[in-house]
């Protein structure tokens, strides 16, 4: 099958001049141009922003895990992908 799973992008919005861009969320888009346009439609449709950055989620490098802090457990090598181990067999309930 052709790949129809558009990559994930992280969206950063500057809500008004004088403030820095803040992470607003993510979305899917085939390329950067569409990611920007989709971000404009989705995250600023009530006029919440004056400027948008989009970054491929795969290009985000997260801070390195600190062994002393289990809350930085390096369970995934990519920040927004985790092994899909919750593929739940059919018929299994109350999971």
């Amino acid at each position, binding site marked *: 099958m*052709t*790949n*129809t*799973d*558009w990559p*994930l992008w992280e969206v950063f919005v500057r809500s008004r001049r004088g403030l820095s861009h803040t992470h607003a*969320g*993510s*979305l*899917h888009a*085939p*390329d*950067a*141009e*569409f*990611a*920007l346009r989709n971000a*404009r439609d*989705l995250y*600023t*449709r*009530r*006029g919440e*922003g*004056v*400027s*948008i*950055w*989009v*970054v*491929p989620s795969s*290009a985000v490098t*997260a801070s390195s895990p600190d062994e002393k802090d*289990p*809350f*930085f*457990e*390096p*369970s*995934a090598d990519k*920040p*927004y*992908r*985790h*092994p*899909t*181990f*919750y593929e*739940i067999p*059919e018929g299994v*309930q*109350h*999971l």
Partner: protein
Amino acid sequence: MATATAPRTADDEAYQRTFDAAVAADERIEPRDWMPDAYRATLVRQIAQHAHSEIIGMQPEANWITRAPSLRRKAILMAKVQDEAGHGLYLYSAAETLGVGRDELLDKLHSGRQKYSSIFNYPTLTWADVGAIGWLVDGAAITNQVPLCRCSYGPYARAMVRVCKEESFHQRQGYELLLALSRGTPGQHAMAQDAVDRWWWPSLMMFGPPDDESAHSAQSTAWKIKRHSNDELRQRFVDICVPQAKSLGLTLPDPDLRWNEERGHHDFGPIDWTEFKEVIKGNGPCNEERITQRRRAHDEGAWVREAAAAHAAKHSGTAAAHTGGRTEKEVGQA
């Protein structure tokens, strides 16, 4: 759940203790934090179901966009259905932070392996149903969702803050719509009453089964995913709606509904859980239609998504070189 059977190590125990302490201290859990597998699975299930509900929920209302009886109502309804698509997107994003892709979730929706709110399996038969959905269904949803803004999982809580902020107009527009009908011609008034009669009980079912039968409640409450019990929220909703119905000049279809001075709440009649279970099982009036339309839109759109992906693949070299991996745009909105 391959990892669930793996022997727990001393590290796991330490992680678990840190997790428990964070939840107890009302701190937020973030995507890269260690979390119990069951917590992750519960969140994926709940957020996905929530996201699916938003996009399936577009259908009953979109059913009336092309027939909205005034241009003002048409604009409001389009904006509302658009918001629902947006809310679906926020929620799928939140689910994706848990390591599961949107395609996978949609696939589970399309194949019936994940659910959406049963309320959307009821049909919108008249224009007044748009009002009843806004007032009752969105009202129930908001009652459920406001506590989720404080849910222990950060991305979910943040998505809910955004959703709740945007949703404040949804309920009001529904109420206003019904008010116009109730105060309108006898035909319009009857249309409004009929819609409320049909949507009242299904709305009460939106809070889920009674507390003593709720499968996931105890654990979800311990994890602070859930903040109030089903029955508690349902009671809150009934108490809110009774005076609102009075102001509307409409009645609620429950002969047992009355104020209980002692409890300080309204008593209400028994809910038909048989119907609830049947609708969940797939025997509601529109289960088949909703999923069929969703699947059709997805399948018929496949060539469009493929085209955009193919175009991106052809031009990826130049685009990346151009932007250095980051793309920026000033929003030229008036």
